[in-house]
């Protein structure tokens, strides 16, 4: 379970990018995070993955505090940014093995999981090519494969469906559901409200750094559609 309490992050003294944000993501949740451009979604995701420091608040996963035990915390999560810049001089398979080494994935797991995910995302044949030759979508698929291979308990994704072809997007959704069915959880930002509506069981809406609504998707939207609610709130 990921618990974010009173998270605050500023880039300048005048304006808070994330302001006193609190959120709980329970095991099995597929939690959508929506808001307009510049609302603070990416800053929140980067803060809770340890990429950028934050001024105040706590972030814990299953009781492990990000600030106090960053390595242990990060060993449970995987993060994929909206525009994954990877090590261009590596081949795809080298990159997957690099992350597998860092996350201490056993050889047995690699041998079963790498072909499984690479085949599903139709990238196996390209794994021997340098990442510098990959398209944006291929890089995104590679980042996803490398993330799934180390079996994260929590998957944090920033706009995961942008750049993916329809088949890959479908495959990703299936793997997301599978991960959550196995007790894992997913927290992802998106602008595609239809995806959020169909895929998520919970949703959070952020506006100017503040959380304006969060909870079970049916409770949040009530009788309205998610699109109408979003337009009304932000």
């Amino acid at each position, binding site marked *: 379970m990921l618990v974010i309490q009173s998270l605050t992050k500023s880039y300048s003294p005048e304006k808070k990018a994330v302001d006193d944000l609190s959120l709980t993501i329970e095991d099995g949740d597929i939690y959508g995070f929506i808001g307009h451009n510049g609302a603070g979604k990416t800053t929140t995701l*980067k803060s809770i*993955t*340890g*990429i*950028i*420091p934050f001024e105040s608040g706590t972030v814990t996963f299953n009781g492990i505090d990000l600030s106090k035990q*960053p*390595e*242990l*915390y*990060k*060993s449970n*999560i*995987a*993060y994929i*940014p909206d525009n994954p*810049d*990877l*090590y261009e*001089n*590596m081949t*795809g*398979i080298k990159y997957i*093995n*690099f*992350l*597998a*080494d*860092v*996350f*201490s*994935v*056993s*050889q047995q797991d*690699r*041998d079963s999981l*790498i*072909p499984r995910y*690479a085949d599903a995302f139709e990238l*196996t*044949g*390209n*794994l*021997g*090519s*340098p990442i*510098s*030759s990959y398209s944006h979508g291929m890089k995104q698929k590679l980042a996803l494969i490398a993330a799934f291979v180390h079996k994260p308990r929590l998957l944090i994704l920033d706009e995961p469906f942008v750049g993916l072809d329809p088949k890959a997007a479908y495959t990703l959704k299936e793997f997301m559901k599978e991960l959550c069915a196995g007790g894992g959880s997913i927290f992802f930002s998106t602008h595609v409200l239809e995806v959020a509506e169909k895929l998520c069981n919970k949703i959070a809406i952020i506006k100017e750094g503040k959380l304006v609504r969060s909870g079970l998707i049916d409770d949040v939207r009530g009788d309205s559609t998610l699109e109408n609610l979003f337009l009304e709130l932000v």
Partner: protein
Amino acid sequence: MKNKFILLLKAGLSYTFASSKMGFGSKSKGKKIGIIILFAFLGIYLAAFSAIITVLFYENVSAAGLKMLIPSLFVSASAILNLLSALFTSAGFLFKAKDLPILFPLPVSHRTVLAVKFTQFYLTEVLISLITLGVSMVTFYVLDGVTLMGLITGVVGIFIAPLLPMSIGVAIAFGVGMLIRNFKYKNQITTAITVISSVALVLAYYAASNLQGDFIIANAKALIDKVSSIYFPTRLFVNAFEGDVLSLLLFIAVNVLPLIILFLLVSLRYSSLVASFNTERTSSDYIYTAGSASSTFGTFLSKEIKRVLTSSMYLLNSCSSMLMLGMYAILSFKLKTLPDQLFGVSPELAEDILYLTMAGLIALACGFTSTSASSISLEAKTLWILRSIPVDIKTIFNAKALTNAIIQLPVATAAIIFICIVLGFSIVKSLLLLALAAIVLLAASYGGLVTNLLFPKLDWQNEMQVIKQSAASGLYILFSFVIATLFIGLAVLGMIFLHLDSLTLVMGVAALYMFLFLILHGITLGWGVRKFQRIY
């Protein structure tokens, strides 16, 4: 077009020269002034080097009435340096700049974009010309007086002479790049070509250093002819210097015209050429085979070593100290006679001086460059990976530091063993020199990390801006130079005033470097870790 050209050029130059982009993004005025002083010092240091060589040459050849050998050699030397620079950097400027995908869709002609890129490239080349040809010309005028035609030729030469080497460099770099773009190991091939060319340059230096003053004077005419036959604009430059206006016009024409033709040719299909140049070998026939798992440290070390070995720019600029050591190894044949030349001192003292000299040169060379001084900046947009994975920052730092030592130590060891055999040092003295090299390399590795953490530069367009032009790389060179001068200076003082033998003194220098290594190691793994967490 003019306004757009200026607009794009200003934006492009801001990445290279603007203070906030050089790696010291803080608003601290003190830091900015410090960096300006640093680069001024480096400029003065290089200029002084050119001036001293000019003075030495002038003293040798002026008595024989062969002063024109000086402009001849310096315009050739400047052209060679411009050519080498163009070979290694032109592709980064013209065909692989990271901002090209942003610039091409703008409502600006591709010819304007190319003009901007060529101008940026030219400004870098002119800096080389200013430091070599410019300084030597000024020194020459001071020593020999100024004629109007000499002055005009000198000024024109500084700004025009880089153009032909630029054209040749661009053509070769583009041709080679296109030829090997689909090779599986194209980065390694480029790196190998770079290293071989650099070794060839060292050997050429050795051949040139064999020329005695008497030989130069006796064969000055033949030398000028030889140099002119290899690089014919030299003859035009010398003739212009002596007052021939037609030669000056021809010198301008042979430099300018090829560049104009090249510019026009490239501008015809600039975006297509960029796309072709960046096309990479791809295969879709990979079949998964089980690899072997590695430790976290092992996998990071492998990543860092591969990063250096797959970039000729990174390897050449961060390991140029090994070329210095190679040069020392070749020159050790000459230093062998040093004890004989030291009249009035005992043979023991002469050997002590030789040993201390070599120790000083080795310490200077091993510390001179470090791959780690730009290794954090080179992470740039991939920094998110390091920040989001469960790895101790100390592991990352140690892998980056050790990479510098691992890459440079084998070359250093071979060169030092060669030097010790040639100079006949005892086993104990030889082992001490090897230990000194290892310790200096370790100190250099962590020193590089500290300077890079002080001035990280993450918003670069091509890696040259990090490896060659960043505040961190400049500061590192200054730091290593000051430290080597200080430690070797102390050893020399110990020899003069305390009459200590060279073995003791070199042990002292090694101890000082060990102490420095421990301090830098502590700073990196303490302050450095905290600083790294704030960089993004």
